């Protein structure tokens, strides 16, 4: 579709800022309505085959893992992933046949995803972490590109659609990266209200940029709080409601990763992910943890269990600063 451009061998996702603006005008409601829904509902309504998706943060820390598993469960096809840390999510999305392209970023880890690239089962384009974050910032700022003084001189330039121009103020070469306006952003947060106002505690990759730059935004939250909480503490708002299309209440939504100050990473489960090498191992993992359970709640009950969750919560002893 028209949102995919080509530059030499490189395909990249791009639309004119005016096209995105038109979408925002027509399709992003500014009305505070109740957007609370099930993950299955949010994904079936808002994620389509061929979509370009971004997420914040990673499979190790505050990643939208419950939403990723739901996307796999609903067997989406031909997704294009853009994320700084395409870790286990990307392996699972590729292993499940959901994703065919990845803009990286950091392509790690475990051998499965690397092998998939070698086998040509997934196409990879190199933007680097800084380049991707900047592309999303450009998408949020409504400009067609942003300039940067990295990527220059490296081979990433040739396998991305970044361009080098002569800066009109200094005459020196500057790199431009094109704006990125994803179809869908998945953002897992500590607290949200039913309208979509959302709070993240701790660092983030590009949560506000991605929410502003994306056509559709699904927020999954550990906790649903009263809307008034946000107006009482405006400095703590990461994303205001009118950028958000759906709110999913997903306690342990970052599992097996950590949710800072809520629960710790489940390293044993992560090691099982890291150990996946063969298709059979992948099939088994997906069957056990995704297809074989109806939803996130059943996954938590049958595959994680209250005792384990209690233990992971008890390990989250560092809460200073996360409020």
């Amino acid at each position, binding site marked *: 579709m028209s949102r995919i451009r080509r530059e030499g061998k490189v395909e990249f996702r791009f639309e004119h800022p005016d096209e995105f603006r038109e979408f925002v005008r027509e399709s992003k409601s500014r009305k505070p309505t109740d957007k609370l829904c099930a993950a299955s509902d949010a994904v079936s309504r808002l994620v389509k085959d061929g979509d370009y998706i971004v997420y914040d943060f990673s499979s190790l820390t505050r990643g939208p893992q419950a939403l990723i598993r739901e996307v796999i469960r609903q067997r989406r096809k031909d997704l294009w992933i853009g994320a700084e840390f395409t870790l286990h999510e990307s392996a699972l999305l590729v292993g499940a046949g959901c994703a065919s392209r990845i803009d990286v970023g*950091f392509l790690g880890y475990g051998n499965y995803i690397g092998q998939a690239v*070698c086998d040509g089962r997934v196409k990879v384009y190199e933007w680097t972490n*800084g380049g991707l974050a900047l592309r999303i910032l450009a998408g949020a700022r409504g400009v067609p590109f942003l300039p940067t003084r990295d990527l*220059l*001189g490296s*081979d990433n330039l040739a396998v991305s659609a970044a361009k080098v121009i002569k800066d009109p103020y200094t005459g020196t070469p500057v790199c431009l990266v094109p704006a990125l306006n994803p179809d869908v952003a998945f953002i897992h947060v500590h607290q949200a209200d039913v309208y979509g106002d959302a709070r993240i505690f*701790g660092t983030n990759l590009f949560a506000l940029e991605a929410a502003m730059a994306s056509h559709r935004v699904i927020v999954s939250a550990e906790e649903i709080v009263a809307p008034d909480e946000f107006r009482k503490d405006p400095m703590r708002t990461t994303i205001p409601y009118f950028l958000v299309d759906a709110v999913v209440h997903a306690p342990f939504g970052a599992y097996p990763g950590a949710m800072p100050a809520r629960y710790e990473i489940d390293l044993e489960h992560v090691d099982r992910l890291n150990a996946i090498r063969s298709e059979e191992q992948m099939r088994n993992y997906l069957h056990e943890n995704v297809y074989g359970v109806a939803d996130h709640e059943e996954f938590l009950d049958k595959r994680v269990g209250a005792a384990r969750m209690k233990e992971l919560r008890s390990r989250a002893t560092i809460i200073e600063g996360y409020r």
Partner: protein
Amino acid sequence: MARTVEFTDTEFMIAQGARLLEDGKTFFVGWGIPQIVAILAQKLYVPNVVQLFEFGAVGPQSVLPFVRGTMGGPQNTYRSLQWLNMNWAFSYSASGYMDYGMLGALQVDPYGNINSTYLGGTFEKPERRFAGSGGGNQVASHCWRTVIIIKHEGRRFVPKVEFVTSPGYLTGPGAREKAGLPKNTGPYRVVTSKALFGFDESTRQMTLLSVLRGLSPEGVVADMAFRPIVPKDVGEIHPPTADELRLLREEIDPSRIIIKGEMMSASA
């Protein structure tokens, strides 16, 4: 007679890296080994170093033991000065506030260009694919001094890297500036499991500075796929100290998952 110290190649690289940093400077920390280097250095040598993580943790002081695999977790970002996001983190480095950056590498060439993307085949169809840049390209482009940490295996030191993931001196003197990269930046040191390299001021080529006590310069460079400059005077690097090893083994990585590696020895 001198006591013999036993240690892993990883422990030696970490200890070397930690000894390179200056106190009261800023340090852009890459994923993995550089995180351990930063922790060890701050505990032992540079209490006032300001660490920066690419996702926006400014000045973290990690809790021990180190939690493997994570970087954005509460342990790693504990007691930061400031929590921001990725675009802000790279603003600090792009505008010149980051003194040191440290990166791992699959391959490095005489000009300190780093490949961490793939080995063999082509970019589109590689034989082996790895993580790629992450924020490494930004670190190597922006920081004043980039330190490369790489296991000392001959095949990793190639005349020309297959893919320039993160820029060294590219094709030689002036090439970074010509490409538009910030002035007076570039690779500063290459830390390996046998030696320490720098870069020659005039040719920008990798130069052997010192080798682990007991090793010979020629022995160290023998199996490298390119020959670095080997000056007459090559220094000696003492093996990991008791303090370095105790901290690494007892406080930072008691499970020995990160510091494990090939055993080496040298006289203390």
